[in-house]
């Protein structure tokens, strides 16, 4: 699970651009056709609906529509829209604000939390949402391991959850828990879900509309084609303004951008710098370039092990030496990566938590910081006994050369690009690097069969989850299991601090503990944050008049902690702005041109071959 790193907002994994061979076929062939064919059909659909439709281009597949199983970013974002959580985050500054609960109060010993559930939240089938639904949801997650797949970390410490009356929810804890006002768990209607048998198999995608109490109701879903939602007119915070919200699949980024240029979709996330630059100059399109909530890191295998003390995997032994890890990172020029790979659409990496979360943000200073200094890196390696041999390769005392592998996501252009830079920087140090790009990295990752890996997670306003994945407790139980661990890190000092912050209710003290944890993590050299990539996204201003970013000043729209963007989006008045742009056509023409060139080449070859067989027949 989790491991798949490269991503994920809390439980949600980062949108992978696509999947394997299939995508590839889609990307090549289908993309080309969709450019041409799709606009007409889309418009026809709009006419039929008669209302305003907000179409969002997505690429990541839905893992499950069941809130108990969903972990990917697309799925969890949709659950944010369809179900209320106990609390929500303010779009301005991400502080906790009321959701399904209007207020909450801990007991003096902080072990009993009492939530008041609002009386004006209704399920889309008309029944009122009560504390009983919330109690049932949490109790189910505590008693059925299959229901704890996605969000089990929140309820692991719960002792008992009760609903003494429809407006009161009482949660009893075994130990204090700092995340009690940040329980990111969708509350489901008991009267619908108690009929479900096996939670590990139920994907909530058979009966539409799906009963929920969020701002939108899921009305239709076709795997890798679309997810359709209608506004919940009775939503307590006020109904959304659009008449329909559609998440439409584009497995190819360029196809999604072309659709945006044609006005077929209203919003496209995850742009490349070139796409963003080209879109910036176009009429009726606004590009949103906001600090992201993700970090992009270089993880080193600390020697994969399980809780029963056994080690496994084939990570390079030299990486167990702190000097090697230090030297590797000393030879990474983060400024160049931000300038060249992200072309300025990222912030240079420092601590573990992105600067956007100001109260928890930490950065190394003084002697602790590992600045780009290849000469220092060489000295560190020399001092540690890794000297260059005749061929200029560094060799350990055991005679084994420093030849590392790095796991990269084949679907992520940034991984490959950074891999190229690392190869050259480390090559000069005398360290070999093999970039192993896979469509799915989770297999070697869970087996511990890697030396280094590109890693990245989206961070929530409450950092508990992204910190918990580096504790010993998150290690797999046995080498055969998979744990919540990200990178098999198990460090006593880090764990001690984690336990302290988990029970610390004083925000300032907790922030201080979280910073010390980051400092410790930085010193171990297991997680080296290279950059915090920006959210690069674009929307059509002639379809969306206004939309709320999070945080309100310079925030992102896709993958927010909350439903703010789509809930707040206001449709543009009809006739505002012109029709689809013409500027895009050059790009499309160029693309088609390239396809034609290859096709002609193929045609010539095939033609000649056909002729040859024709001759044979003569």
């Amino acid at each position, binding site marked *: 699970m989790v491991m798949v790193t490269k991503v994920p907002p809390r439980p949600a994994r980062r949108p992978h651009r696509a999947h*394997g*061979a299939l995508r*590839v*076929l889609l*990307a*090549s062939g289908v993309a080309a056709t969709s450019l041409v064919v799709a606009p007409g059909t889309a418009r026809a659909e709009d006419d039929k609906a008669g209302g305003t439709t907000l179409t969002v281009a997505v690429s990541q597949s839905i893992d499950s529509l069941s809130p108990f199983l969903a972990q990917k970013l697309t799925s969890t974002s949709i659950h944010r829209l369809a179900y209320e959580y106990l609390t929500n985050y303010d779009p301005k500054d991400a502080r906790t604000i009321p959701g399904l609960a209007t207020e909450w109060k801990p007991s003096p010993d902080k072990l009993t939390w009492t939530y008041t559930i609002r009386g004006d939240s209704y399920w889309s089938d008309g029944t009122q949402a009560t504390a009983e639904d919330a109690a049932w949801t949490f109790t189910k997650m505590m008693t059925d391991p299959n229901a704890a797949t996605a969000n089990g970390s929140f309820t692991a410490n719960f002792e008992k959850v009760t609903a003494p009356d429809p407006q009161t929810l009482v949660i009893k804890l075994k130990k204090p828990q700092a995340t009690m006002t940040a329980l990111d768990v969708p509350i489901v209607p008991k009267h619908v879900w108690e009929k479900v048998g096996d939670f590990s198999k139920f994907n909530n995608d058979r009966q539409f509309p799906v009963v929920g109490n969020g701002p939108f109701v899921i009305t239709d879903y076709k795997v890798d084609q679309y997810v359709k939602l209608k506004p919940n007119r009775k939503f307590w915070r006020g109904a959304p303004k659009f008449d329909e919200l559609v998440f439409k699949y584009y497995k*190819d*980024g*360029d196809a999604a*951008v*072309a659709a945006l*240029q044609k006005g077929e979709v209203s919003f496209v996330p995850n*742009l*490349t*710098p*070139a*796409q963003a*630059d*080209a*879109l910036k100059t176009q009429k009726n399109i606004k590009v949103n370039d906001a600090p992201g909530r993700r970090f992009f890191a270089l993880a080193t295998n600390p020697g994969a092990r399980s809780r029963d003390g056994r080690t496994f995997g084939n990570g390079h032994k030299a990486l167990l030496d702190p000097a090697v890890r230090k030297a590797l990172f000393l030879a990474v020029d983060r400024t*160049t990566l931000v300038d*060249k790979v992200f*072309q300025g659409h990222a912030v240079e990496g420092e601590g573990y938590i992105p600067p956007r979360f100001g109260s928890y943000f930490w950065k190394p200073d003084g002697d602790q910081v590992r600045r780009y200094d290849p000469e220092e890196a060489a000295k560190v390696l020399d001092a540690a006994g890794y000297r260059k041999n005749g061929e200029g390769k560094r060799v350990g005392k055991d005679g084994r050369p420093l030849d590392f592998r790095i796991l990269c996501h*084949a*679907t992520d*252009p940034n991984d*490959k*690009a950074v*891999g*190229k*830079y690392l*190869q*050259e*920087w480390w090559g000069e140090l005398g360290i070999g690097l093999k*970039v192993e*790009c*896979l*469509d799915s990295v989770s297999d070697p990752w869970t087996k511990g069969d890697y030396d280094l890996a590109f890693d990245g997670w989206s961070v929530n306003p409450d950092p508990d989850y992204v910190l918990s994945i580096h504790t010993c407790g998150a290690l797999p139980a046995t080498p055969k299991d998979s744990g919540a661990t990200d990178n098999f890190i198990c460090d006593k000092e880090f764990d001690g601090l984690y336990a302290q912050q988990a029970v610390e209710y004083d925000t300032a003290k907790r922030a201080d503990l979280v910073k010390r944890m980051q400092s410790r993590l930085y010193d171990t050299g297991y997680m080296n944050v290279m950059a915090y990539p920006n959210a690069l996204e674009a929307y059509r201003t002639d379809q969306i008049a206004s939309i709320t970013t999070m945080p309100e000043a310079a925030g992102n729209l896709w993958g927010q902690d909350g439903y703010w963007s789509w809930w707040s989006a206001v449709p543009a008045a009809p006739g505002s702005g012109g029709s689809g742009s013409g*500027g*895009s056509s*050059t*790009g*499309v*023409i*160029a*693309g088609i*041109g*390239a396809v034609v*060139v*290859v096709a*002609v*080449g*193929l045609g*010539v*070859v095939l033609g*000649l*071959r056909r002729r*040859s067989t024709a*001759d*044979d027949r003569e």
Partner: protein
Amino acid sequence: MTSSTTSATPAPEPLEPPPAVPGSVRKPLSAASLARQRRKASAVRFWKQYRTHRAGLYGLAGLVLIALLALAAPLLVGADVQSVTAAPGTALESPSTEFPLGTDQFGRSLLGLLIWGARISLLVGLLAAALSVAIGTLVGIVAGHYGGWFSTVVMRITDWFLVMPALVLAIVLATVMSRSMWTVVLAIGVTSWPTTARLVRAQTIAVESRPYIERATALGGGHRHVMTRHVLPNVMPLVLAQTTLGISTAILTEATLAFLGLGDPTVVSWGGMLQDAREAGAVSSGHWWYLAPPGIAIALVALAFTLCGRAVESVLNPKLGVGR
């Protein structure tokens, strides 16, 4: 068929002694020098006939030019051209005098990359075609020679590979194996051999029905002797033509696999350049100069190999007639 007369290798039929040149050395020529002479003569004859195919000459000229460019790439552009840390330009520049074809997203010169990429594209094409033809020849000769149920089984396997969409199979292979140039070579080679196998088997059966094979067997030639000394030389012309034609297919497949992101991301190839262009969003942002040159280069090389292959085929197989 025709092969025994045009073959560049020792012909199986007993040859008449070479016409003695009056006044020349008395000493009978050794077998080796006889063979050398004969080879030289047949090479000259081959070239004379090849010259009559104008399209073949164009193809050959194109190939020689591209091969020279690829071989001279270290001198022309240098290995530094693929270096991202020493890239001279900024990201995605338009064509200029400094960068005639513009730059890629790392600021590297696209013209340099195009020349450098020719090395991998040609190398993979050649190796993959050679591997494919080698497998095909082996399977074809063995199946044709032994015959019987063995042949049936082998040919059914061949048929299975033949009806299997080669690209899909190659994608599967390239996905499950680690990303490297050799994986691509293997994936293409392993999927494209069945046509050669069928052709070679037919030729093997034709050759083996001739009386001299019977004579060879009667004189004590074993399976191995017959296959390597008599059958193989006779199927060589067919194999040669098949290889030349196979290279263009292999280059196209290599480009396709690299474009689909299944090649080695750390080496520069034409298909890889197209994939990089797609990942950088060059299509939607209108950077046509990133996409067009590698595409045109692939088409040209594939065309050149096909033209050569066709010419070689018609020289070696007179049944295909002249005048084309």
